[in-house]
């Protein structure tokens, strides 16, 4: 076995196939990963900017507050007071940024990162998701990225096919097959060795190329993630080599083999995913967001009209919260807003199920069917590893909601007690 592998290698080296395959894999890997680092660096930069701006805001308020406490400064209006819970919790510049779960391997797949929001901003009266790519050219989004996942999912099978479509047929066409078969080896041994050689060649080159690119580009990742990535790539290779092996065993000649493998590639990468895609979206259609927009508006209008009822209900359920004594003018407006906002959120979540339910069903259907197409499986695996899959990114909304609760839990009591945030309390302002 090793004997055949060694000589396959010598032949590859001799006729430049080795150089071409290695060179292309190295170039494509380095290029796609480099593009990945550009993308993630940019996202990271924006992220750092936002966090810095937010830290500066609170740092400044803290300093102002200390100056006021020392009697060096006096705020002109209540809303300019640096310790006011509304100034710190909901006014312009305040609030905290919440990010979706980020993964070290995010360089490998752009996934949905240019479509779904990158981060969210949480304030007392409002949580909003922000998409860095909102102004990006839709033509670019439609064309997709040349990322490492694209290279692995779409191009690697072509390398596998190019190297293995004629493992036996080439021997036959060259005439060496008769001599080979007159030797004391079985045809099974020959083909096993050939498949093993090509598998090792591609696997080693891919790993070497990725390893070199990771080192040069300074991409760091956790070992378990890397092992998962490796396992995913190797499984994908195994699948394509199995397909090639099958076609080589049937063996209708080099040209026919190439044609059948090309057909299989098209089937798995173009036809099946497009078919699953269409099936999922026509079985569980997600309605247009136009409906959501008017619905959201209707909810808001409704709640505004019902504000008094809602307040009454709130106070009857929370008798301790009933405001006592003389209240500042702004109090009623903001207090109503905070109480109704929770109801709005609840109603909105109800309305959102019209979108989330078909979405979930679609994903479920795709998850069930993705084994029909290993490329689909690998793509979703890679996006998951990169943390750029739709599910992880949509998780942002949950993160925002969770943090919003913490944020409110900190500021609303202070607001209701009609006091300012103390300078010493600044450290306990919640961080996402």
């Amino acid at each position, binding site marked *: 076995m090793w004997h055949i592998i060694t000589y396959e290698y010598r032949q590859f080296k001799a006729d430049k196939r080795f150089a071409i395959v290695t060179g292309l894999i190295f170039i494509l890997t380095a290029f796609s990963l480099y593009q990945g680092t550009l993308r993630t660096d940019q996202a990271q930069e924006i992220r750092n900017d936002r966090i810095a701006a937010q830290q500066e805001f609170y740092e400044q308020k803290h300093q102002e507050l200390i100056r006021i406490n020392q009697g060096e400064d006096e705020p002109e209006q209540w809303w300019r007071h640096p310790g006011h819970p509304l100034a710190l919790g909901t006014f312009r510049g305040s609030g905290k940024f919440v990010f979706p779960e980020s993964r070290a391997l995010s360089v490998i797949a752009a996934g949905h990162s240019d479509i779904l929001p990158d981060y969210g901003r949480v304030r007392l009266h409002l949580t909003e998701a922000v998409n860095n790519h909102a*102004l990006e*050219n839709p*033509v670019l989004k439609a064309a997709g990225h040349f990322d490492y996942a694209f290279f692995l999912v779409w191009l690697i099978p072509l390398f596998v096919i190019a190297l293995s479509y004629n493992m036996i047929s080439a021997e036959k066409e060259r005439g060496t097959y008769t001599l080979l078969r007159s030797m004391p080896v079985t045809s099974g041994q020959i083909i096993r060795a050939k498949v093993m050689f090509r598998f090792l060649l591609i696997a080693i080159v891919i790993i070497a190329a990725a390893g070199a690119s990771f080192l040069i580009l300074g991409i760091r990742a956790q070992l378990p993630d890397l092992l998962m990535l490796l396992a995913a790539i190797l499984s994908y290779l195994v699948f394509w080599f199995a397909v090639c092996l099958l076609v080589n065993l049937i063996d209708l000649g080099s040209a026919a083999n190439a044609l059948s493998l090309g057909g299989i590639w098209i089937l798995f990468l*173009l036809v099946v995913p497009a078919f699953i895609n269409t099936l999922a979206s026509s079985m569980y259609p997600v309605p247009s967001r136009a409906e959501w927009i008017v619905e959201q508006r209707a909810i808001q209008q409704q709640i505004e009209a019902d504000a008094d009822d809602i307040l009454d209900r709130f106070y009857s359920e929370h008798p301790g919260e009933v405001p006592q004594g003389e209240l500042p003018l702004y109090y009623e407006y903001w207090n109503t807003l905070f109480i109704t906002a929770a109801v709005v959120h609840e109603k909105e979540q109800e309305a959102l199920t019209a979108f989330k339910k078909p979405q979930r069903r679609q994903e479920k259907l795709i998850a069930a069917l993705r084994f029909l197409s290993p490329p689909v499986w690998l793509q979703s695996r890679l996006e998951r590893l990169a943390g750029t899959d739709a599910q992880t990114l949509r998780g942002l909304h949950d993160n925002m909601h969770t943090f919003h609760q913490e944020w409110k839990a900190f500021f609303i009591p202070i607001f209701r007690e009609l006091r300012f945030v103390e300078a010493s309390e600044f450290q306990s302002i919640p961080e996402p």
Partner: protein
Amino acid sequence: MNRIPLIICRHELNMLRRNKSVVAGSLLIIAILLMSVWTGAQYYGDLSEQHAAAEETARAQWEGQEAKNPHSAAHYGTHAFKPVTVLSVLDPGVDRYTGVSLFLEAHRQNVTGYSPAEDHNTLSRFGDLNAAFIFSFLFPLLIIFTGYRMMVQERETRMYHFMRSLGVTDRQQAAGKALALWVVTGVMFLPFILVTSGFLIFQQVAPTEWIRFTGMMLTWVLYAGVCIHITIWVSSRVRSSSNALVLLLGVWIISTLAAPRLITNVASAVYPVPDAITLEQYVQADLDSGIDGHNPLNQHTAAFRDSVMAAHNAESPSDLPFNLSGLMLQVSEEYEKRVYDRHRRKVDTLHDRQVRLYRAASFVSPTLVAQLASMGFAGTDIHAHRDFYEQAEEYRFQLMTELNEHLKKHAVGDDAYGFTAGNEFYKQTVSYRYERPETIFSGVPHALQLVLLSVWFLAGLICLSYPGTAHSD
């Protein structure tokens, strides 16, 4: 006209008819194509219903708002919804990646929100069964698989010399074989055109849609022609049929898969578009140097107010024959619009430059230019989206002007304090209706795409008339 190409064509067709995989492949693609029209039509039906309903509700919400100061109504705002075009059934273009709605409010221009892609599933980056995808990806493959051997096999089977001895020239052979591929492709286009025409008649579309549809078909027929000519030409130039296959598939991969993605990376590196918040910061910086209708402390605002008062010899705003806030709001709205327009145009210019890169890359990828042309005709390209945006923005400005004028005119004297406008007024305000441009070639780039595709077509035709003879053993 020489009859030999026709004889060759008929001979090739006879052979193709007996080739089970060609027949099966063509039937499969026709079936997928018709299915895509069916599912697309359903989606279109649902979507246009939803958008029409939303548009109606939005208007009702606007008209039904409680009595309030017109400027509060301006802040309350309304939504414009992007209409779905019939031809998006055939080519959704970039529609999935553009927002479906635009929030129209005072003082600012928003970004369209909620693209269908946001709600779309994991597979959004894989293909989607629609006519444009099938024409741009699967048709070339079928043409390649059917035609890659046509010329080269004559040499491989030594039929070539025999044909030469009968006086058949290379050019006649190439013409005959290309003709055979044209017939196969034509047969595949035919049921599609019939079914789609039926659908368009059923939908009672406007005459311009028919012109657009014709343009789309022209685009895809030209593109198919490019594929046919290149396939036959390559087949005549290579040494062996497997070389032909590898070469043609390589061209296909570069043209349909690699080039578009590469250009995406290049375009976003060469012409980076600012992120939404950064742009907002630029806009804010510009606005701060202008007139702000809300902030009385702003020095520009104060200067403007003083000048108005001086012009009317008024001591206080209440002495003026009109409502000063109404005027100030309108003036600041105009200023804000100018600032926003300027920044939006900058982004648009960046987008145009990026698209120009795609167009420039069409010299390696006829697919790119065909896709751009097709979505242009379908009205699902970036220009169509921009047209929607601009009309919606125009409407926003009209609406804001009406609101400000109302305030300026009626909130005078005793009415000034606590002035409100009721339903009667909001019902009269201008309403929004998107008008699709009548002209299909809305600009140079549009026509350019068709020209570029024609260049490819002609180049293919010229190549075809010089089939290779170099490797005739």
